[in-house]
């Protein structure tokens, strides 16, 4: 299941609970949040790309796309850090010879950043669910502008 | 975007009428089809279900959305259920037709069906023998009465086989029994279809389809076959006869009465009534040179093959006949009658007369038909037509010139007779390789296919390859219009078939009747199989329905396959939404009944599929390729 931690930016209040929870769980925070111009908070973490560029230069096969997800094998990692140079998002860091990137907190039911997010802005889901959420929200908005007479008409049709 | 008239039909007469319609701003089935485009994909794939009011439910064929209905039915279940309901409806149409014929037959024996009589005593005796009815020292009415009771009992038979199924080769019957699809009374099977497809009953696609096979067999070897045989007893078993077809059969100076629909009971009486001197006199008075009765669709096939009454066209030509502006009355009973005729006839002087107690339409003159007063009503109908003659607007009349001669009336008995009373010459021709095999090409018209294009090209391709073609229904009329039903058409056949046709003086395409008469094809196949000492599924034979559209056609297709004949469909049935059902129909059935379906819209490719199948069977039988 290629899932990733996504952020519904419209809900994010930039509180940084995610960073803190991640740091507590993983020693290094693998999600980084900054509030751009004090107005727009954006968390960045591994996008779990489905055609990950980071695997391209990996010499030992430590990073590979398998079973529909990006797998990392620290045993095989040479610590060369080339993957970090390949990532367009700068979403991973090399620390002590291993790659620190979001691995969904395997020991937890849900990643801690998602669990702790006070506004439920972060969520861990399959990529397509994001669009679905937004569409539903748009429907809610459009609902208001729908002519109430339609509703009456549809009742009859029902 | 409206298609051009010539893109709609290969028949010049039809194209002419379509152009006339366009000029007059008249809407036809083709126009309505184009307004339906694009058609609902869920419907086309058979993955919508309206069997309960939690629904309608539908399955996303691309797997993103719903993969189950509310009750949990998958695409496979929904498709199978929908297909079963189609079979049930088709079987119901045929068998109800049969019921009407048998009931008339029964009334006739007790003298309640005034003008009907037994026309084919030989067949009566043969049928009685099949039912073990004593024939010696009994009047034909007595025999008929007992036979009628026996036949009526077949419909509601709760247990035990339908008698006519035993006409099939023994191997076939054994197979049916083994698989558990040896049918019981057709009424029971249809009711069971409706029960099984009700919410929460049968939900295994294979299990559902097996019942589909059984139901269709109760139609093919029950309903349809009873209809054919009873009509033969009542109206005579067809024998080869010549006539004409196509819209050109309408007469410019006569009262034109078109008989459209399916049941012979009505048409036979109208034919009689049209000869009534009183009516003929009236016609003269009204300025007509006479009364021209013509057939349409399967009623057309019935009167064509029994009486040589000309036929104006097949299913898609029903509106075109009216559009000629020369039709005084369009008399209809049941099945395949477009409700659009109501609006259409109102644009002309044509009277749209509905007669069946079961079927009424918008804009009709209602003249309900009952056996007791059959002749009187028929006379009244003809009179209405005649009286309408003065209303005809000559300015709007345009009867196409095209009419085509044809030789029809090849009932199974007639074929045997043509062969000299024994199937041996045919068997020899087949084993000898002059005739590669038998192709049964049947079915409706469908606006999704250019009118008659599928029919004519498929048949031509088959005879070219020395396959003797038997035909019924709308395909038969299409072939007739294309001149394929003439002995001269042998010229279009391959050398082997040509030789056989010329020797016997028969066309390479044999007209076996209306769509309900596909039972005749089953009998012919059984006869050939028995003569070869094999099962039907071993025969070098294949079926096709290049332009099928009705639920009857679904039932036919299924019983033909269940009887062991490989069948190629020219339009896609609404089953592709289920890979399981599709696989079962196109592959799995081979293991069950020794035959499968194939779908191929291109008639040439379809012919190839059939030829390949026939060649395969020939090889299996050790016959010369």
């Amino acid at each position, binding site marked *: 299941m290629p899932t990733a931690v996504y952020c519904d930016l419209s*809900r994010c*209040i*930039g*509180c*940084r*609970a995610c*960073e*803190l*929870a991640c*740091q*507590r*769980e993983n020693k290094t925070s693998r999600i980084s949040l900054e509030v751009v*111009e*004090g*107005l727009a*908070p954006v968390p960045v973490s591994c996008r779990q790309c489905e055609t990950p560029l980071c695997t391209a230069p990996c010499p030992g096969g430590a990073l590979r796309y398998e079973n529909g997800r990006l797998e990392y094998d620290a045993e095989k990692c040479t610590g060369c850090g080339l993957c970090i140079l390949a990532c367009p998002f700068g979403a991973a860091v090399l620390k002590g010879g291993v790659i620190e990137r979001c691995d969904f907190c395997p*020991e937890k039911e849900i990643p*801690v950043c998602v*669990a*702790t*997010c*006070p*506004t*439920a802005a972060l969520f861990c889901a399959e990529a397509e669910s994001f669009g679905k959420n937004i569409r539903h*929200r748009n429907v*809610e908005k459009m*609902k*208001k502008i729908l002519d109430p007479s339609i509703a009456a008409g549809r009742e009859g049709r029902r | 975007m409206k298609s051009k008239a010539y893109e709609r039909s290969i028949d010049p007469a039809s194209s002419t009428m379509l152009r006339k319609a366009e000029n007059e701003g008249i809407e036809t089935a083709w126009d309505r089809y184009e307004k339906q485009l694009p058609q609902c994909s869920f419907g086309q794939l058979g993955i919508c279900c309206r069997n309960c009011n939690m629904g309608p439910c539908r399955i996303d064929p691309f797997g993103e959305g719903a993969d189950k209905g509310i009750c949990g039915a998958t695409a496979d279940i929904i498709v199978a259920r929908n297909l079963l309901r189609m079979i049930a409806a088709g079987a119901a149409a045929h068998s109800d037709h049969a019921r009407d014929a048998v009931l008339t037959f029964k009334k006739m024996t007790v003298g309640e069906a005034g003008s009907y009589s037994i026309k084919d005593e030989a067949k009566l005796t043969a049928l009685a023998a099949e039912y073990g009815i004593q024939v010696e020292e009994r009047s034909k009415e007595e025999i008929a009465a007992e036979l009628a009771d026996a036949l009526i009992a077949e419909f509601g038979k709760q247990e035990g086989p339908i008698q006519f199924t035993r006409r099939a080769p023994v191997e076939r019957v054994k197979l049916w029994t083994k698989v558990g699809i040896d049918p019981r009374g057709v009424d029971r099977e249809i009711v069971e279809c409706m029960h099984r497809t009700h919410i929460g009953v049968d939900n295994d696609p294979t299990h559902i389809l097996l019942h589909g096979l059984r139901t269709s067999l109760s139609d093919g070897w029950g309903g349809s076959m009873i209809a054919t045989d009873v009509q033969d007893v009542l109206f005579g078993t067809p024998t080869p006869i010549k006539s004409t077809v196509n819209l050109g059969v309408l007469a410019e100076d006569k009262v034109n009465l078109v008989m459209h629909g399916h049941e012979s009971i009505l048409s036979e009486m109208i034919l009689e009534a049209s000869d009534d001197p009183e009516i003929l006199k009236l016609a003269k008075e009204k300025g007509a040179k006479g009364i021209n009765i013509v057939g349409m669709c399967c009623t057309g096939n019935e009167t064509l093959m029994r009486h040589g009454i000309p036929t104006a066209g097949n299913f898609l030509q029903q509106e075109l006949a009216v559009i000629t502006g020369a039709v005084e009355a369009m008399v209809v009973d049941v099945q395949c009658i477009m409700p659009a005729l109501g609006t259409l006839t109102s644009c002309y002087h044509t009277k749209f007369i509905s007669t069946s107690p079961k079927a009424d339409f918008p804009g009709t003159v209602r003249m309900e038909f009952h056996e007791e007063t059959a002749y009187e009503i028929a006379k009244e109908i003809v009179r209405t037509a005649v009286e309408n003659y003065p209303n005809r607007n000559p300015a709007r009349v345009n009867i196409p010139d095209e009419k085509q001669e044809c030789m029809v009336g090849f009932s199974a008995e007639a074929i045997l007779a043509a062969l000299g009373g024994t199937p041996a010459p045919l068997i020899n021709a087949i084993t000898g390789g002059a005739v590669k095999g038998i192709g049964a090409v049947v079915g409706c018209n469908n606006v999704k296919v250019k009118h008659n294009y599928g029919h004519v090209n498929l048949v031509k391709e088959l005879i070219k390859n020395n396959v003797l073609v038997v035909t019924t229904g709308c395909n038969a009329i299409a072939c007739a219009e294309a001149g394929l039903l003439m002995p001269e058409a042998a010229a279009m056949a391959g050398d082997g078939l040509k030789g056989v046709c010329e020797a016997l003086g028969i066309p390479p395409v044999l007209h076996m009747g209306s769509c309900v008469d596909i039972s005749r094809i089953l009998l012919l196949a059984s006869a050939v199989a028995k003569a070869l000492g094999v099962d039907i599924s071993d025969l070098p034979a294949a079926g096709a329905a290049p332009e099928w559209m009705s639920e009857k056609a679904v039932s036919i297709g299924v019983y033909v396959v269940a009887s062991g004949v490989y069948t190629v469909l020219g339009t896609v049935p609404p089953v592709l939404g289920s890979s399981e059902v599709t696989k079962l129909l196109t592959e799995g059935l081979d293991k069950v009944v020794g035959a499968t379906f194939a779908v191929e819209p291109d008639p040439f490719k379809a012919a190839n599929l059939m030829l390949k199948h026939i060649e395969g069977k020939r090889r299996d039988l050790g016959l010369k390729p």
Partner: protein
Amino acid sequence: MEEKNLYPTICPYCSLGCGFFLEVKEGKVAGLSYMPGHPVNEGSLCPKGNASTEVLTHPDRLLHPLLKTENGWKEISWEEALSLAAAKMGSVLQEYGPDALAFLGSAKCSNEENYLFQKIARLLGTNNVDNCARLCHASTLTGLGKSLGAGAMTNPLSDLENSDCIFVVGSNFAENHPVISRWILRAKERGAFVIVADPRRTPSTWLSDLFLRLKPGTDIALLNGMMHVIVSEGLLDREFIRKRTRDFEGFERILSEYSPEAASAITGVPAGDIIKAAREYAKADAAAILYSMGITQHISGTDNVIACSDLALICGQVGKKGAGIFPLRGQNNVQGACDMGSLAEYFPGYGKVGDKEAAARLKKIWAAEKLSEKPGLTTAKMSEAARAGKLKALYLLGEDPVNSHPDSLNVRKALEKLDFLVVQDIFMTDTAEYADLILPAAAWAEKEGSFTSTERRVQWISRAIAPPGEAKADLDILLGFAEKLGLGLEYRDAGEVLAEISRVVPMYGGITKERLLQAYRVSWPCPETGHPGTPILHTERFNTPDGLARLIPVEYRSPAESPDPAYPFLLTTGRTGLHYNGGSMSKRSSFLLEKEPELFVEINPSDAQTMEIEEGNNIILETRRGSTQAKARLTERVSRGVLFMPFHFSGTNMLTGDALDREAGIPEFKVSACRVRRV
């Protein structure tokens, strides 16, 4: 994996009362787990909550009682410490009388501890007992007390999801109570309209549908302006006004001066927006008002609160699902500390000091001979009295007035002037530096007791781990102290204290330790055993003698200080998401500190440009009371002429004024005139 034990607990930071589990391994805190089943936070936690365990394991924790000597701090035994404290306090009592003593309770301590603390004070004969609610929500107590009869949040937080319109005024909930955003967003998902009135463009405003950027301190003008619209457009709930309120006639008159245009002139909010906000609020089926210290920390704090309450009342938006007034409190037990009577003018359960009946009732239960009938000193007055030499000894229970009280220079002076200062805390604070005696206390998870969250939810915290070193639970320390004083208070544990509380405080009547352990979610009033608690207040009647709410007209008054040519900027203060109040806890989280390490001041980029200040420059801020240095942060969050500073770092409150609300005595932290220059 080794076995970890999970202990349910409640977050020690803000007043929402979020639940989580402490992971305890071999008697040590190993981490925390989320509690998705908790009705307030549904498992989520803000950054402070996430960092809360760092407090428990921090090396700075006080481990032994400390005595100030000439050679610095000296570790002494508990016996010595408590004897000393009792002796010193006793001698002051003897020499100067009870009112020379003062007790400053803590909104961070449990109900039981606060109860005991004020009981000690009152048994010693003084009402000089107060807590930090004075600094944040005293105006709520007085304001809502006057109009509705109960100074507390009317509905549970989760009820916000049922609101169709949420009007947030003077609250940056997204940073200070992040979990509230969850409920507001949920309401928004249902189509609710969210209005945020704030001088700053805070994260809370990001979630709003309408943002009213008012000038600091002009809340009454805004609220009256909205009410003007509601009255003149006939959007009020006449039936509600007739049946449930009184004094509407006089009230209506005063509004006439606050046309949207007039209000706009004062507040700086476009008149159109005021009208829109008024319509959305009044027309909603259920509308909620959320407010916080932006309303309360003004000299007109009480009036501000009343204005909010008036708005709710005339629209009938109180006492039903999704409609109510939500004062967002600060500390995790600020509600409880007030309920327990850790207040100069209230006995436990809000019996007024001076009310004979209330005193008699208390005397009976306490078996006390007499109780002082004179209202005690509030925090600010304590400082004043100390400076004047009238106050001699002070017992501080987990408070850091040097950092958290306004005008800290004067606070320091006051502390210096004291004869004896006891500070009971978990960390060394700036205040503790002035102490004569420091008593090391247990942190929240190291003791047991009940806490009352802002939504009146009483929750029990069990002891998960032992306190470090010799530190002791506050309750034990207080009991030891009382014993030394010979007050004869005998309770075996917090449960027994709570049992007494349920007899003294009517709305806690049905709340016992056993019940809280079973279902740690009872909302007061819960007058008797078996009562289910009351999530929504005022559904039938208000808590006033006649059951009717009062509509009290309030007038806009300009803040005590306004910008002038000498001090051209308007300085406002508040919290950031990552720190907490004086920061004695949050600044001990390495992570929180790493992200927000030092004092900063938000300044509008165009102001900065004029002053030639660049991002990250150190600048000096000066008010009439003091000056401090901070890093400049250029942002559009503040409008021109406005500065914002968080109050977590020492320095901010050198600048703030000590002008007080005349009724509630709450200081005006939110508005000071200020000038700025580069270092």
